[in-house]
């Protein structure tokens, strides 16, 4: 029982950072605490650490400003891309029918750009509360997957955004800020691609669905605002 208890303590301590985990487990071993009190102490510290993190605006932004609404919008857009693709392969686009190959390319680039930039913001802004951001993304996904009723499409068409988003998260965790030149290209490309996508469907840019897609573009502009500027890096170094 004691060994099992200490195994649970060891697992719970994985939620702490490496140095702190070493210190806490060492303190518990030195004090000869019971596994139960050890678990109580470790979980208490984990909860306090998380509570401190949530005093900042960043985890809230990442989880509830980007991840939760973004996953809903990106699922909708993934579905849109899938439907466009299906329409193209079932109609003869080269004879003038269907939405057009160019529109599909625009959609695909936008999907990748939005997903990557949203993932990057989530990864870079709140890396220590990433698990909450991931949960905020997973809940809408599971909700929509369970209610998906388009027979001609696989339900996994909703999740086209996941891979570029994971790629963005990984990059965000690694480098925190992107280069200014890359940020400019990304923000401008996403914005420019957004205009023909929606005007091409006969909807003005201020219509609600179009506005949702403008909202998805803000992570790219956030990345531009926080990009690494060569002059400032030189000043710091």
């Amino acid at each position, binding site marked *: 029982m004691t060994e099992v208890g200490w195994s649970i303590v060891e697992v719970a301590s994985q939620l702490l950072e490496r140095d702190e985990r070493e210190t806490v487990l060492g303190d518990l071993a030195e004090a000869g605490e019971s596994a139960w009190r050890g678990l109580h102490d470790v979980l208490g*510290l984990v909860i306090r650490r998380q509570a401190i993190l949530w005093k900042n605006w960043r985890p809230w932004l990442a989880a509830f400003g980007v991840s939760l609404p973004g996953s809903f919008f990106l699922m909708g857009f993934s579905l849109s891309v899938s439907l466009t693709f299906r329409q193209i392969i079932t109609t003869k686009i080269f004879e003038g029918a269907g939405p057009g190959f160019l529109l599909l390319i625009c959609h695909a680039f936008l999907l990748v750009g939005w997903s990557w930039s949203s993932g990057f913001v989530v990864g870079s802004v709140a890396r220590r509360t990433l698990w909450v951001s991931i949960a905020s993304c997973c809940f809408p996904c599971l909700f929509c997957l369970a209610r998906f009723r388009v027979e001609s499409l696989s339900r996994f068409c909703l999740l086209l955004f996941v891979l570029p988003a994971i790629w963005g998260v990984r990059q965000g965790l690694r480098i925190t800020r992107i280069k200014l030149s890359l940020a400019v290209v990304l923000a401008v490309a996403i914005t420019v691609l957004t205009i023909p996508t929606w005007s091409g469907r006969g909807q003005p840019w201020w219509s609600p669905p179009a506005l949702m897609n403008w909202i998805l573009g803000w992570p790219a502009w956030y990345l531009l605002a926080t990009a690494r500027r060569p002059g400032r890096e030189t000043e710091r170094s």
Partner: protein
Amino acid sequence: MLGEFEYLLITAAAGLGDNAYGAAIREEIEATTGRRCSLGALYTTIDRLETKGLLKTWMGDATPQRGGRAKRMVRVTPKGVRAAKDFYDAVTRVSRGASWVANRTGSTS
């Protein structure tokens, strides 16, 4: 102004000197106050005090009695000493004349 637990922690760390680290400070606080001190309260307070510049911490050596795990050593900075002294002076001043103070001013016993 320090909080009560912050004062206890700084005072315990100062008393332990070069042997001040998490487990030792915790043991000292528990022995002195007779109250349980959780590791969560201890380490979040240590972090807060370090951010304020009242403590300095670093990772120390690992020992066999700790299962080969490192200690987080603690040292009170001069600013921490001043803050603890200010707290002690304030508590001493405000306690003058209190009924539970043994040799209070004006006491007839």
